[in-house]
């Protein structure tokens, strides 16, 4: 171990950059949220507003709706992705030809820019051009229009996210499964346990840490989804797929109502941190053992 002064010098650039891009915005948004500051108001200078911005916020139906939609979206994608991802990971554990190739194909969506994912799905769903509306109409007689039907728009956004992020769940769970010791499973099989019992009693408990980590990361990402939803539905029809990130970015941000926008950003951050912390506590399972 060397002298700590050199160590701090090596850390310094990282700390400085993150103070400017991470800490300062946070302090700034914290301060601004207590001011009334609108560039196009009668008085464009910031004025102290105490908790007024937050008072407006808790009664803002649009904001509350976007929060609700975000949570609903997160729940839908999380449940489906973990279920599908687990099944696919188990399938990937089997022995079959061209495994590496399939794995690579399956990984592809993870690296694509979210905005390009949105563009891809937009081309699939545009009426008149995309195959999805065409075949739904011709085979099932379903009228598919993202710009008209909220349920279809919501379902499409969820499906797009499943397409985009299930591979992530598959790959992490696959990594977890491959590192699992085989003896308990084989022992149980000798003892006459069936596959369902083995899954629930042996594999699932052993997979808990990996599962929780995966869920944690997926929730954090789902809560901040913006780009691909914007490309696919523009948050529409109406505000039916306008998740919180989109709401701040497209509705609040252009209004130059900085105090109110800051309060909303701060509250979003607050909710994220609370969810994050609860998951973290669940993950480290501090109930049973000290940190």
């Amino acid at each position, binding site marked *: 171990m060397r002298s700590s002064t050199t160590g701090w010098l090596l850390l310094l650039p990282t700390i400085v950059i993150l103070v400017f*891009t991470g800490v300062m915005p946070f302090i700034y948004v914290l301060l601004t949220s207590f001011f009334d500051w609108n560039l196009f108001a009668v008085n464009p200078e910031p004025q102290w507003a105490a908790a007024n911005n937050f008072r407006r916020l808790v009664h803002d139906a649009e904001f509350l709706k976007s929060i609700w939609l975000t949570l609903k979206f997160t729940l839908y994608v999380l449940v489906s992705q973990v279920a599908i991802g687990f099944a696919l990971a188990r399938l990937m554990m089997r022995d079959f030809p061209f495994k590496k190739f399939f794995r690579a194909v399956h990984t592809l969506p993870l690296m694509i820019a979210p905005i390009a994912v949105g563009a891809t799905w937009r081309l699939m769903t545009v009426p008149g051009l995309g195959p999805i509306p065409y075949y739904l109409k011709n085979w099932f007689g379903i009228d598919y229009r993202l710009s008209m039907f909220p349920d279809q728009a919501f379902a499409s956004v969820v499906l797009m996210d499943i397409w985009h992020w299930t591979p992530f769940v598959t790959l992490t769970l696959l990594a977890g499964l491959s590192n699992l010791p085989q003896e308990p499973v084989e022992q149980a099989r000798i003892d006459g346990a069936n596959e369902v019992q083995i899954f629930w009693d042996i594999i699932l408990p052993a997979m808990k840490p990996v599962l929780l980590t995966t869920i944690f990361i997926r929730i954090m990402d789902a809560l*901040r989804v913006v780009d691909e939803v914007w490309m696919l539905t523009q948050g529409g029809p109406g505000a039916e797929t306008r998740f919180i990130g989109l709401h701040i970015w497209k509705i609040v941000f252009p209004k130059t109502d900085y105090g109110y926008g800051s309060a909303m950003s701060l509250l979003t951050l607050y909710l994220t941190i609370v969810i994050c912390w609860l998951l973290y506590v669940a993950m480290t399972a501090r109930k049973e053992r000290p940190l």
Partner: protein
Amino acid sequence: MTRAGSKWITFALWVLFSLMTLVPIWWMFLVSVKQRADLFGKPSFLLNIGRMTWDNYAIVITNPAFQKYMLNSLIVSTANAALVCALGLLAAYAMSRYRMKGKDNIFFWVLTNRMAPPAAFLLPLYLLFTGVFSVGEWSLFDTRIGLILLYCVLNLPFAFWLLQGIIDGIPAELDEAAYVDGASTWQVLRTVIIPLAGPGIAVTGILTWVFAWNEYLFASTLTSVNARTITTGLAEFVTVTGTNWGQMAAVAMLTLLPAALVLALVQKHIVAGLTFGAVKG
């Protein structure tokens, strides 16, 4: 069921899943090489080679605005990847080799930067970039340097984490030996750490490069004309020109091209990368 039979059933299932993954991308490619007249009507997933055209790509690539976006994206991603690798390496080395009071708290704090929702930081960053971080007429807003620094908030924690794991894997005796021979910290980094951590640094650089290339939200709000990147260009194709699907598909294909290349290069490390090393691939 025989073992061989189950093997081929698994194979068939994976063919199906791979098709599901590839069809949307294949469709986009088809749209990008179709002639305008062929866009509408009964969709076919087969490539009609006789009527294929590269015009959309030609139009896009010769468009000066697009060239600028592409150039901006290249400069920003490359500079950002280089910057975070350099700083991340220094920081990770300090974290790995020095005894410092409170360094675990710093480590935790650095990582939390990555978890924050970007949308919540748009407004303060916009205000800081246009107003506070400025000298006279010049401000960070709409500059490439602004984006390069800003992407550090996403990529630096990531590089830091990944590189720390890599440096931890290099035995400390090696640099101790170099110190005994009278080498300075800088020389140890250059002659011992960098050569040994080389592959790890390359993986870190490639992944951070892709993350910076893919970023959209900050790029769209913190630039207006000069520093626009390719992802904002792609979004503009939808909202501004509205119906020019062929060109939009071409831009999108060019945007996702790096993804395919990266996949070939660092496939093994993607899992560890995306989970912050919490899950080993």
